Structures are given as C-alpha cells and as structure tokens.
C-alpha cells in the first residue's frame, strides 16, 4: 500500500495528461454506457439482467489501456467496462443488450455473454469463476505458440471462494503462463458481504500461497491501477509468469440494475461516492494543470456518443428467428423447426 501510494504520488507529479485524457474519456464512456443501459432497461429495451460497474471504472480503465489488441481478456457478468476498455464497439454492445441482430453476439448472448474476439475480448461469463480456467487456457495457448501476447482475467471478490480460483492460479504458476489475474474487489458477493464468506486474509494471500507475485491497489485510483498493471503486464510479457492484482473498489448500484441494495446504508454509499474514480482522475488532472474545458469535453462527447448509440440500438433490427439454429455446431446442427 505504501509502495502504491508512493508510486501514485510520483506518477501524479509528472502526470502524462495526453495519455490520461483518453483514460478519462474511457471512464466516461463506461459510466455513460451503463447509465444509458440502466435507463434503457427501465424502458424495457434491455431484456435480461445487467450488472453495472458504475463506481468501478478505474479497474477497467487502469488495466486495459496497457494491453495490445492481440492480448486476450476474459471477464465476468459485470463486464461492460472491461469490454469497452478492451476496444469493443459500444453500439454493438448496446445492440446486444437490446437483443438485436447487429449486437456483438447477434443478440444471442446479452449482457452476460458479450464477447468480441476481434479485439481480443474472449467473453463475459454467466458463471462466477468460470472465466479463470478459460483465461488460463488462453494463456496456455499463447505460451505454446511463443507469443508475447498475454491474457488478462478479471473476476470479482466472490470468485475467490470457488474452486477454479485455486485450480486456475495453480495451473498458471505450474506452467509459468503469461496471465494477469485481476480481482475486482467491490466487497460484495451479489448481496452478501464477501468478508463474511471468506476465510483468512483474502485474495492476495491466497494468490501468494499459490506462488504468484500479488499486489493490492486502490481500485478507485486509476493512476495506481494503471501503474501497478503496467508493471505487472511488462513483467508478464517478458516471460515472468503469472501475476495477481487486487483492486479494492465499490459498486455504486445494486448487484443488478434492479437491486435496490437495501443491505447497505446510505452513509457507506455516500462515503464511496466521495471516492468516485472519475472525479479523482479529474482532480489529479486539474492539479496537473489540465484545462477544465478539456475535461468537460470528454464527458460531453461521451454523452452525445451514448445518446446516439441508444437511438441507433433502439431502432436496430431484431435477429431473424432462423438464427436460433445457426452456430450451434457443424456436425449435427439441428435443422430449423425440425425436432
């Protein structure tokens, strides 16, 4: 923590604002994408459950800009931010939430199954922890072909109590795989506080016990996440084997967009609101002398963009029902309507 704090200060002294304005822009993009989606869900346009990451944007925005497009990302049910940060098209994603033909997955997956292989995003996942072993396998393949691309696997604090956490991290260590594990620790496993369900000191200790260098950072401080991620990613890319990063953060919404989250009190939520990762980055940029108008511009542009995304997604075509029978399998794919 002290190490992080020091690094963060150092970073803030010589802030590279040209590199960070796009990060701010990305955070607004995530925030506004999800606010738009929540609003659209109220209107009945988003069809299934969505798990917003509002308040957690610094994790996605701190990690993914350090990745190449060819690096591979595996995410969770709460994956919009990661996916956007990896470079997926917001319009295609919104269309996916709306179940439309031109959605990222042709309307077949919805929020919990967004993937965009074109930008190295290998999928959200509806099963907690399942992305860990899949991510490990992707890293295994990268290593087999001597690529210096890496895999990143992001999961929640709840996932550290599932077996695949142990099996996957152990595997990554045994084969020295190029993979960064990120525990996006928002303190909750759905509606229950994770600490009441978790033995021992937590994710970092567990990762270390499995032989992985592990670090905890303030997950609402995008500069800190960025710095830690960069260090880790460089080391992994140079063949240093798997690493682990825990980012402590908080989700400002309920578990799903319709969860009123009555299991936590307003004071706690307000306290975290004061640590809003976007406001914090803006504060740092302000200190570094960045013009208020340029910052405002990031937000405004993102707002306009998402309005456009919303409108276009709303008007997009539904998938052809015949598509229900496509892409099941090559051998033994069922013929439409015949069963």
């Amino acid at each position, binding site marked *: 923590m002290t190490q992080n704090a020091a690094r963060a200060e150092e970073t803030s002294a010589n802030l590279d604002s040209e590199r960070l304005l796009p990060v701010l822009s990305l955070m607004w993009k995530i925030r506004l994408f999800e606010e738009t989606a929540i609003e659209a869900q109220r209107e009945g346009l988003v*069809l*299934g*459950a969505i798990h917003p990451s509002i308040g957690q944007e610094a994790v996605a925005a701190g990690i993914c800009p350090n990745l190449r497009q060819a690096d591979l990302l595996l995410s969770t049910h709460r994956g919009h931010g990661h996916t956007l940060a990896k470079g997926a098209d917001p319009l295609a994603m919104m269309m*996916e939430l709306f*179940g*439309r033909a031109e*959605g990222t*997955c042709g*309307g*077949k*997956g*919805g929020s*919990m*199954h967004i993937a965009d292989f074109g930008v190295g995003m290998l999928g959200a*996942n*509806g*099963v*907690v*922890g399942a992305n860990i072993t899949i991510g490990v396998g992707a890293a295994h393949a990268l290593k087999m072909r001597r690529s210096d691309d890496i895999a990143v696997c992001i999961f929640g604090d*709840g*996932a550290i*109590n*599932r*077996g695949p956490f142990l099996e996957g991290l152990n595997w990554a260590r045994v084969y020295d795989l190029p993979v960064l594990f990120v525990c996006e620790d928002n303190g909750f*496993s*759905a*509606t*229950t506080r994770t600490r*009441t*369900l*978790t033995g021992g000191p937590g994710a970092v200790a567990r990762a270390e016990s499995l032989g992985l260098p592990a670090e905890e950072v303030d997950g609402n401080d995008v500069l800190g996440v960025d710095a830690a991620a960069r260090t880790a990613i460089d080391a992994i890319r140079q063949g240093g084997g798997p690493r682990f990063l825990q980012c402590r953060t908080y989700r400002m919404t309920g578990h799903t967009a319709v969860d009123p989250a009555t*299991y936590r009190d307003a004071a706690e939520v307000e306290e975290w609101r004061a640590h809003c990762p976007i406001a914090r980055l803006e504060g740092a940029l302000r200190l570094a002398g960045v013009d208020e108008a340029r910052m405002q511009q990031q937000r405004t542009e993102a707002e306009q963009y998402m309005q456009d995304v919303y409108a276009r997604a709303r008007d997009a075509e*539904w*998938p*052809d*029902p015949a*598509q*229900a*029978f496509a892409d*099941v399998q090559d051998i*033994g794919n*069922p*013929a*439409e*309507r*015949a*069963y």
Partner: protein
Amino acid sequence: MANTSYLEAGHRALREEMQRDERVWALGEDLGRGGVFGQYRGLQDTFGDERIVDTPISEACIMGAAVGAAMTDTRPVVEMRFSDFALCAVDELVNQAAKARFMFGGQMRVPLVVREPIGIWRSSAAQHSQSLEAWYAHIPGLVVVAPSTPADNLGLLKSAIRCDDPVVYMEHKNLWGFEGEVPEDEHLVPLGKAEIARAGRDVTLVTWSAMRHASLETAEELAARGIEVEVIDLRTLWPWDRDTVLASVERTGRLLVAQEAVSVAGFGAEIAATVAETLHDRLEAPVRRLGAPRIPVAYAPPLEDRVRVSKDEIVEAVVGMTRTSPSRVPAGQ
C-alpha cells in the same frame, strides 16, 4: 383454501418443515437476503443464521457439505440458485449423494433436497435457462421432482424434505409469481404420484413443470374443437407414475409428451419409449414428443421463442394424432 403464489408456497413448505423438524436447515448463497428470487425472505430472522445459512460462492462445497451433513443426522435443503450453477457440483450430487447409501451397503442415507430452479425466463440466455431433469432421472439413487402449481410446490417440497433419499427439486423460474389455491391445513403431496390435471378421452398429454399450464390452456381450446385431451402432470419424474400414464393411454390410445427441455434424450423419450414398448397394440397413433430443439437458449426474444413449445404446436400435434391416418413422414433431426 388460500390464494398463494408458487414462491410463497415453497416458502411456507420450508418454514413448516423447519418448525416441525429441527434437523432441517437450508444453505445457499444470499439466503439471508431472501435468496435470489425471494424464496427465503424473512426465514433467517425466524430461524437464525445457523439454520438459514449464507454460503460462499462455492457450489461444490455447498453440495458436498450437504452430503456430509445429511450423513450426520441433519436434513439439509440446498439452494443452487439456477440449475445451471449446479453443474459446478455434479460430482457431489451424482458421485457422492446419489451413490453413498448403496456403495456403503445401506449403512446410512443421504436425506438432502437440492433446489435447482429450471427453465426459460425472460432473456436469461444459455447459462441461466436449462432444464436438465432428464440427467438426474438417469442417475440411480436420485428422486426428481418438478412441481407446477402452488399447491404442489407446498406439498411436494414438504414431502421432499421428509424423504430419506436425495431429491433434486426443480422449481420453474417462470412460475414464481404464479398463483393458485392452496390448502391452509397441512398439505402433503406424495412423491411419485402424477395428477390427472384434466380428464379427456382422446389423447393423453403427459407434461410437467411450467408446460402443464400451456397444456391445460391448449386442452381447453381443443375441447372447443371437440377433442378431449387428458392432461397428466407427472409432478415427480423419478419415480414417474407409469401406472397412471399407462392406464390413461390404454384408454385414449394416444400419447403426446410436452416438455420444455431439449427433446433429444429428454425425459419425454423415456415416457414415449415406455408407452411404445408397453402399449404398442393399443396405440391408435404413433407416440409423439414435443420439446425444445437441440439448440442453446438464446437471449433475444425472437430466438428464445424458437426454443419454446408453443400452444400452436401442441394443437397441431394433437390434431395430427387424432386424424384417422397417422402421418408417416419422418421428422428431420
């Protein structure tokens, strides 16, 4: 009689059984908050957090711990949230719970109930919509129950909790809000007994879980056209009520199965095969199954709908079967 929802009926069943027998307890994720659908609302206040246990996201351990606790003279009710997540705990259910009594030569029993909500529900997509009752019906040692009404959810869940065998108890997510009359007094429904939900002379329509309702509505429509469909709600898939089904088909000469699950290797195949084996000469039309095509459940409604058995299909199938000369065109696969 009181009007109660399917969800409330399950809630009442658990509450009554926990009051009756202090060895009964429930474990699963977020139960203290009421469970993901509210099925456990308020129960932790009543019974404390040692009997309504909030668990880590550890499906394998939830199920495995229930097996160990069931062997140790308690009666756990396991909540798996979605039957899909129970796929993280199949060893514990199939290799352990189902086989322990037998492997150990009958030294003990494993009286656990695992609640595995099934079914298609509002764009839940491929990992939150499966109906895998056929899997568990195939496994020696397991009882499989799939209630369709509030009264049955009350009476079957109570019977399941009292049963000394491991029971896979599959509620349908789309029925939580479904309301119906429920007896106010103690109400038990025996495991293994089907209900003739509607009598009819022309076609026996065997179904279970949510498909009961579409089947009954369709039967009414068909009655208006002069075709009397007997609708049998199996309620329990293992053991299934062969006697009731066979007696019905013996009368009607026609069997149609309507299931929400994938038809290929679904439980409907067991019923259709059994009827064809047993009553071949009595059949006035070939047995017939309706079920989902062998495709995953998609998110977008136009695609999701392709998985559903529609009332039109039921009508078409029944009408087809009651025509004098049965169709001979082989279906594609």
